[in-house]
C-alpha cells in the first residue's frame, strides 16, 4: 500500500500546487501509516525531481519520456494508471488545476476510483478517506466518503498548506509507455506576466461600477499588492475583461488571503465564488450592496476616488 502524489510541472518548473499536493499527501500517508511516492511526469525532468523529498516524499518516481513533455490527459493517464497498479496505490493526490482536474477524472474512470474533485480538506479516520469539497460554486460544502481502491483526491490550488518535512526523496527513473498518442500537441501560449486567479494570494476585482474597460486603477492597486486581477460576470459580459478573469459560480472559485472587490455589488453567484477568501474588502458607492454583508472591511464611496488613495497608502506603508 502507498500514497502517490502526482506532481505538476510546466516546462521543467513545478507548479505551486505541486508542493501543496506533496505536503497534503504526506499527511494522508502518515494517517494511513504508509509510504509516500511522488510521481513526476515530463521530458528531461529528472533533475528537478529530488526537490520533492523536502516536502515529505519518501521516493520520487520519474516518468521521463518525450511524449510526456506537455501535460496531455491521455498519455498521462496511461502512465499514472500503470504506476498506481505497480505501487499498489491506495490514495492518489492530484492538484485540481485545469489539466489536473481532467487527469483526475480520466484516472478515476480508468481505475474505478472514488474521486473527490477540488477538495479543500482531506480527512483519514480508521483507514477511511473522506474529503470536503464545495458544491454549487461554494454555496454548500460536501463531506464526501471515498470508496473503491485506489481513491483520488484532487486538491484545490491554494487550499492546502505547504509544509517542509524532509524525507529521503530518492529518485527512481521508470520505464514508461505513454501509449499511442491520439492527441497531437499543436501549441502552447502563455501570458507570462499574468498571476493566475486560482493560485493568487491576493485578488483585486472590478465590477459594473468600473463603468468601462479601463481597469488602470484596479491594475494599479493589484500591482502594489502583487495581486491578480479579477472581474464580476457583468464586467465580463460587457466585454471589459476576458472570460478567464471571471470570479463566481459560473467562472472561477477563488480563496485568496485578500480579496478586494471594487464596484462589485455582490450577486449571489459572485459571492459564492469568493466567500472562502480569508479577508474581503469591498469598495462600493451603494451602502446597500450585498457585497458589504460578506466584507470584513467595507468602504462606502466612489471607487475612482478611493482606490488610488488606497494604492498610495499601501505604497507608503511598504516604503
Amino acid at each position, binding site marked *: 500500500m502507498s500514497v502517490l502524489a502526482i506532481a505538476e510541472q510546466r516546462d521543467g518548473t513545478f507548479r505551486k500546487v505541486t508542493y501543496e499536493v506533496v505536503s497534503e499527501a504526506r499527511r494522508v500517508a502518515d494517517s494511513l501509516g504508509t509510504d509516500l511516492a511522488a510521481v513526476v511526469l515530463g521530458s528531461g525532468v529528472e533533475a528537478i525531481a529530488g526537490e520533492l523529498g523536502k516536502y515529505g516524499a519518501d521516493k520520487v518516481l520519474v516518468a521521463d519520456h518525450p511524449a510526456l513533455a506537455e501535460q496531455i490527459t491521455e498519455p498521462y493517464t496511461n502512465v499514472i494508471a500503470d504506476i498506481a497498479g505497480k505501487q499498489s496505490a491506495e490514495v492518489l493526490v492530484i492538484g485540481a488545476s485545469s489539466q489536473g482536474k481532467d487527469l483526475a477524472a480520466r484516472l478515476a474512470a480508468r481505475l474505478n476510483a472514488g474521486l473527490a474533485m477540488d477538495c479543500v480538506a482531506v480527512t483519514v479516520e480508521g483507514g477511511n478517506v473522506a474529503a470536503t469539497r464545495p458544491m454549487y460554486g461554494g454555496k*454548500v460544502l460536501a463531506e464526501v466518503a471515498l470508496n473503491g481502491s485506489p481513491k483520488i483526491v484532487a486538491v484545490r490550488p491554494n487550499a492546502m498548506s505547504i509544509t517542509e518535512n524532509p524525507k529521503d526523496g530518492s529518485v527512481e527513473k521508470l520505464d514508461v509507455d505513454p501509449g499511442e498518442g491520439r492527441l497531437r*500537441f499543436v501549441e502552447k501560449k502563455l501570458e507570462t506576466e499574468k498571476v493566475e486567479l*486560482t493560485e493568487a494570494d491576493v485578488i483585486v476585482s472590478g465590477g459594473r461600477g468600473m463603468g468601462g474597460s479601463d481597469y488602470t486603477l484596479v491594475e494599479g492597486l493589484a500591482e502594489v499588492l502583487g495581486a491578480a486581477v479579477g472581474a464580476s460576470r457583468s464586467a465580463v459580459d460587457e466585454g471589459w475583461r476576458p472570460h478567464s478573469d471571471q470570479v463566481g459560480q459560473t467562472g472561477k472559485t477563488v480563496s485568496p488571503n485578500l480579496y478586494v472587490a471594487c464596484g462589485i455589488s455582490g450577486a449571489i453567484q459572485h459571492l459564492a465564488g469568493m466567500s472562502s477568501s480569508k479577508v474581503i474588502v469591498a469598495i462600493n458607492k451603494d451602502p446597500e450592496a450585498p457585497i458589504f454583508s460578506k466584507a470584513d472591511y*467595507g468602504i462606502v464611496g466612489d471607487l475612482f476616488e478611493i482606490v488610488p488613495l488606497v494604492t498610495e497608502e499601501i505604497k507608503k506603508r511598504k516604503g
Partner: protein
Amino acid sequence: MDIVVLLKQVPATESIIAVGGDGKSIKTDDLKWVISPYDEFAVEEALRIREGQGGKVTILTVGPDKATEAVRTALAMGADEGVLINDPAALACDGLGVARILAAALKQMPFDLVIAGQRAVDDDNYLVGTAVAEYMGIPNISMVNREEIADGKIKCRQTIEGGTVTLEADLPVLFTTQRGLNEPRYASLPGIMKAKKKPLETKSLADLGIDAATLQPVTAIAALQPPPERKGGRIIEGETAAEKAAELVKLLSEEAKVL
C-alpha cells in the same frame, strides 16, 4: 456530422441553496431548473458546427421527468433529437455511474463528436464528460474555448492556468466547453413550437442493457453543510476619502495582517 451533446439540468445559478432535512441533499422546493450554463455552450457549439457542416445534433441526458424541460429547451434552440434516460436506479448513481450510463447510450447511436460542459454547476465535479470519453475509448480535450473541424480532424484550444494549449485529434473526440467558446442563442418562439414535435425518446437502464448492480457508487455524500458564515458588514468611517483609505490600509496591515 453526428454530434451528441451531454446535458444536465441544474438549479439556476441565482438560486439560494439550502441543505435539506436529511443533511445530505439540498432543498429542491421553489428552485428554478435550467440547462447547466456550460452545457448551453455545448448545445450552441453543436448547432454552429451543424450549420457549417450539416449533420444532426442529439441531446443526451440522465434525469428525472422534469429534465424533459431542459431537453425541450435544447431542442427549441435547434437541436434535432433528444434522449432522456429516466430510471430510479440512474438517479442514485455517482458521477462514474452516470458516465457509464451515458456511454452505454452513446454506444447505441452514431456519433463523430461528443460535446459536454466542463462541469455541471451543481456538483462541480468536472468528471462526467471526461469519464464518458474514457468508457468510450476516445480521446477528450477539456475546457475548450475554440475549436476547428476539417478533414475528419478537430483542433481544440483549451484554457490552462495563465494561457492556452491547442491540441489536435482525429474524430471521434469528446471535448468539454469553456466560457468564451460562444454566446448561446435563446430559443425563439417558432423554435419552441417546433421543439414540441421533435423526437424525444425516454429510455430505462434495461433499454440500454445495463444491470443497475454494475453501477455501484464509489463516492457517497456523507453530509452537506452551508459554508462558514462570514461576519461581514463592518464599514470604515472617516471624514474624507483619504481618511477612510488610510484607515483601511492600517487595518489590513495591523489587524488582518494581510499586507
